[in-house]
Every structure is written in C-alpha cells, then in structure tokens.
C-alpha cells in the first residue's frame, strides 16, 4: 500500500546518485583514476519522517549530504525533491528550493562565522524569507532562539563565547530560520559528549513534532540512529548495502556488514558477554575497487560468486532491501 502512494508521501527521492572524484597525478595533472565516493545511491525520505544513513568513515555519507544540498555537483542520477528533479537545476532555478533543504554540521566550531554575532548569523536566513521590518526580524530571531532553548540575550554574542552544544543549537536555529521542510543532519552529535548528545537529539525530535520536519540523519552511531530514525540505510564504499525500517535493521539484519556493525555496539550491561562478529581487515583504498561485491574482501560469508557477480538490491520483505544475494537467498530458504 505504501509503495503505491510513494510520490505523495516522499519529500526526497534519490535515484542512482553518483559522484566520482578524479585522482590527478603528475606535472600535467592527468586524471589517473576515480574515487567512486558515491556510486549509485538510491533512497527515499518520507514527509515528516527521519531516515538514518549509517556507515564507517569514508564511505561517502557526507558526500551524499553535500550532493543533496548541491554544494557539490553530482555526476549522474536523480535528486527528486517535492516532485522536481533538482540535480541539474541552475543556481537561479534552485533559488526557491534552496531554503527548503538545510544542513546541520558535525563541527560546531567551524559551522558559525567567527566574525558575526549569533543574531547576525541567524538573521541571514530570516532576511532570505523577505522579512523587511527590523522589529519583525528581531521577534523572529527571539522565537528561533527560544525554539532551540537559548536565551535571547545571547544574540549579540560571538560564537567563541559558546560551548559546543550551544553552538550546535545555534546551528539548528540558523537552519530553521528559512523554514525548511528537510534538514540534512551531518553527524550533528558526533562532536558532543553524551549528555549534550541527548539534549540535541531530543531537541531535534521535538522540532520534528512541532514543525513536521523531515530529517536525513547521518551518523556512525547506531544507538542514536536507532532512537531517532524511522528507516535506516547502511552505506559501504559508496553503496547502500541494506535499507529497512529501524526495527527490521535492529531485529532482523541480513547483510553481513550490517550484522557486523550491530555487533560492535557496546552494551552497558556488564554481565552480557560481548560477541563482536568482526569483519575481516578494515576499509581499503577506495580507488582500488574490486569487481563484484564491494564488501567481498571483508565479508565472512563471501564465495567465489561474490567476486564476479554484480551486486543487486534484493527485496527480502516489504520495505527491506539487501545488496547481498546470499543473505537474500538464506532468508528466502528459511523465513523467520
């Protein structure tokens, strides 16, 4: 039923998105090869929902975020936002959509202009909405600050006067200033300590309830993602390896990479014996991409067929897709 109403519900749909970075070497800077940072990524975010994008460092999560915001030019694929393919849009055509997608950054220190007060930074966005009167802008600024739990007397202070968590709140306020419908959260809590993480995550959740925002939540912390997200995409070397609802990923993971990631989550209970199901080795050079499955060199269940075959996205259940023929087959033969 859900798949039929796809277009009505989805705010952002990505299809086969690709971004290759050239590797240039030598005096003439000839192109030596390509880093396939994002290699055919597809997913969908429903209106008012949160999708988690998880994966280890260097797997292309942040690149996906930057491609969606068009801070980077993508090479192929479709970015369908509210029914329009914005991938090839010029800066002028992009203008009405710019304010609809906003970003929250990982680094709370680099994401605010050190020479502008908090008020000035946030007001840049308020100005975009065309708020002419200074008093209206001031009001809106105070509303935004109180929405993220900051007092309004912080507006004429500079970023260096705030802590990491406070700066992250200010970053959220700036993103909200243009009344977006989708916010890309690029590891918003990774640089914060655990108590502040909880505050920020709850803040994001409350804002979603109040404003009906959709999130693309990028993280490497599965606990956080599991708490916040409705659906989860697991990414590895520029590919989505598994896509499912949050419960399915945690309770019925199929891809060996997902299983290995889940087993690495530390459990606070000291009595539970911790069984990490390791991957073999660690992430290799991205510019030497093997044929066949990208995960073959670290996979615990890889066979010779994995070295040749193209990876296919196989459906194992309603809204649960796995890019591993073996996992899909195992599931098919013995349904739980």
């Amino acid at each position, binding site marked *: 039923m859900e798949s039929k109403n796809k277009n009505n519900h989805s705010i952002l749909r990505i299809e086969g998105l690709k971004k290759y970075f050239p590797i240039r070497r030598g005096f003439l800077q000839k192109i030596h090869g390509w880093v396939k940072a994002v290699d055919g990524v597809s997913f969908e975010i429903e209106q008012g929902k949160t999708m988690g994008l998880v994966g280890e460092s260097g797997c292309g999560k942040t690149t996906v975020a*930057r491609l969606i*915001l068009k*801070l980077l030019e993508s090479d192929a694929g479709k970015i369908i936002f509210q029914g329009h393919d914005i991938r090839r849009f010029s800066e002028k055509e*992009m*203008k009405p959509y*710019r*304010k609809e*997608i*906003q*970003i929250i*950054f990982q*680094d709370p220190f*680099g*994401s*605010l*202009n*050190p*020479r*502008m007060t908090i008020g000035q*930074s946030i007001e*840049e*966005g308020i100005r*975009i909405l065309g708020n002419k009167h200074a008093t209206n802008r001031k009001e809106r600024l105070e509303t935004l600050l109180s929405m993220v*739990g*900051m*007092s309004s*007397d*912080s507006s004429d*202070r*500079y970023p260096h*006067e*705030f802590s990491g*968590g*406070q700066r992250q*709140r200010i*970053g959220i306020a*700036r*993103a909200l*200033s*243009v009344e977006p419908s989708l916010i890309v959260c690029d590891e918003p809590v990774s640089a914060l300590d655990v108590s502040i993480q*909880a*505050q920020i995550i*709850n*803040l994001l*959740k*409350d804002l979603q309830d109040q404003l009906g925002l959709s999130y693309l939540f990028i993280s490497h912390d599965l606990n956080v993602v599991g708490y916040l997200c409705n659906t989860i995409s697991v990414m590895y070397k520029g590919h989505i390896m598994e896509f499912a609802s949050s419960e399915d990923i945690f309770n019925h993971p199929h891809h060996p990479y997902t299983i290995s990631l889940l087993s690495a989550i530390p459990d606070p209970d000291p009595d539970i014996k911790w069984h990490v199901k390791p991957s073999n080795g660690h992430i290799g050079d991205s510019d030497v991409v093997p044929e066949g499955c990208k995960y073959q060199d670290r996979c615990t269940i890889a066979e010779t067929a994995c070295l040749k075959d193209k990876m296919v996205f196989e459906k194992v259940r309603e809204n649960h897709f796995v890019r591993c023929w073996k996992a899909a087959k195992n599931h098919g033969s013995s349904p739980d």
Partner: protein
Amino acid sequence: MNMVEKKLSNDFYIESPLPPKRTRMQEFQRHFGQNRLAILGLFIFILFFCCAVTGLFLTSGSRPIFDPAMVRLQEKLRPPLAKPNLDSLQPQEVPALGVYLMGTDDLGRDVFARMLQGAWVSLTVGFVAVGISVLIGIFMGGIAGYFGQHHIRTDHILFTLALILGTGLVIVNYTFIGIVIILLCLAYIFYSCLARHESTEKETPVLKAVLHSNAVSVDTLIMRIVDIMLCFPSFFLILTVVALLPASIYNIMIVIGLTSWMGTTRFVRAEFLSLREQDFVAAAKALGLSNFRIIFRHIMPNAIAPVLVSATIGIASAILTEAGLSFLGFGVPPPHATWGNILSNGKNFIFDAPWLTFIPGVAILIVVLSFNLFGEGLRDVMNPKLRERH
C-alpha cells in the same frame, strides 16, 4: 516523556551562565596593549599623520605660513636653530618661528618648511599606493580563491589577446591593421552569441571543439600573472615606467600601487581557499545567499587580517620607494619638496651641511620603522598562534 526530558534539559540550559561579554575589540586592545613597540609605532604614526596634515595647511596656499619655496640666497646653508639675519631679509622672508628650526639649504630655503611639505607627500604616496595595491590584491586574490576552479575557454584567451594587439597597433599608428583586428574580434563575439541561440544537434567540428576547450583555470591564470609580475625587479620596473610617464606625484602613486599588489593577492587567495571550504560558508550557500554576499559578508571579514598587516608594512615600503625615486631624480618634480629630493639635494653638501642629509634620512628611518613595528604588532595580535605566552 520526551517533552519532560526536553523541558528539563532546556531549562537547565538557559540558566547555565554565559561567560562575561567581551568583544573582539576589547580582546584586541588587551593584547595590543602588551606590545610596547607596537604602541610606540602607533604613536609615531599618529604624530606623523598630524604633522603631515597640519604641514599641508601650513605650507600651501598663496601666502603660506611656512613657505617651502622661499629662496633667501644670502641665508644659504645656515645650521639648525640658527637665528635669521634680520638686516638682510625682507619682513615677509623671515621664517615664522623666528628661527631656522632645521637650518636652510643651498638656496636658503627653510628645511623645516620643506620637511613639512614632504611629509604630506610621503603620507599620501604611502596610503594611496597601498590603497591601490590592496584593492587590486583583494580583487585578484578573491577571484582566484573563490572562482578559481572555473575555466577560461581557449577562444576567450585568443580573443582577449587579439583585442590587446589591435588596440596596441592603433596606438602605435598602424591604425588600419589594428581596426581590422578589433572588427574581427567583434564579429567573432557576434557570431558566438548567435551560435549559442541555435541549438545545433550535429557533432561539433574539430576547430570549434578546440576553441571551446577549457584552456586554464582562473586560479592558474591569475597566479601565473602574479609570478610573472614578481619576476621583475620592481624598483627598476618602476624606474622604467616613471621615466616614460610625465613626472607627477599621482603617476608615482599609481605606478607604485600597480607594482606591489602581488603579495596581497597571494594572501587573499590563500585565505579564501581555506575559508571557502569552511562549514559556515557551506551553510551560507545552503541558505541561498548570493555569491556577492558570501564573499563580502562572510569570507572577507575573516580574510582581512593578514591583508591589514601586509598593508601597514606595505606603506613603509611605498614611502621608501618614493624616497628612493625622488633621490634618483625620477620622483616628484623639483619645486615640490619631498624627503627624497631634500636628501638628494643635500648629498652635494654632505660635509658642509650634514643636516641636509641627516634630517630627512632620520625622518624616513623613524616613519618606516614605526610602520613596520605597528604592522608586526598587528600581526602578532591578529594571529593567535604567533602570540607569546607569558
């Protein structure tokens, strides 16, 4: 449950105290105040500035109080603090202070008046030349840093070269060939404008492909121009240009400015390159701000510190260059006094009247030194990494 949690956390948050408010200016004053040499430099600079401005008013006009051009041949080469011989002078020839504060030169002109007039020259040359070079530097550096990845097409380069060639030919009186070349260029612009509107589906011919290929990036082009400009020994370049142009103080300012923008360009480019990748610039782009606003409101204020420092030191070197040019006789034309040509005139009488070389020399030394000290103090304050820890 979440609401309760959030309420708690946020209430806690609002009450958590903010540090005492301290603006950047206060921080700046605190750090700058510790640097005694820089304070000294700033003090001398302000003094020099006041002298130059009052000097301009005291030495100009139809009947100036200190007349730098007043020739008193009977009073020549008087030492500093000498009393004028009132018997041999007309009443209007007596110096305003009643004493030759810095002596007189070989024509009996009051050196103090001439120094005052020269101070204004040095000040304006320093500021205008550095102003020009900083403007060019910020412009070129900003373009190279922000738009550096854009490419210039081969035909654009050829077209620009042809236009320059055509204009050059017209100037050196090969009018016919020059005009033909310029007309060809205009025809090409016209043609390519037309061709853009026709959506040609056929495969592009080789010549067109070559012409439309990307030749160099903007960054490469600008930085190679900078390298080329730096290859010339700049003082001799200025000498050549000044020898060709009619001697005037404005030409000298412009020429010094046009030959000293390269350092600023490199600074600004480097700053722009690193700032462009910062998250706050990405956020500004995501908000949908225009390039203009991003450059001037978000990047420039963060990039300006090293430019200010190099500008302060640049003023010192511009003053020095002007003095050097005047000393060699290529500077400001003679009736007008500058520190350089007072020095130059004085060198013939260095044993009879040492004050003629000593006074302008020391003045140049003190002003240049004060600018350098001030500039270095600024650099230390603005770059926290260089700040000394006590």
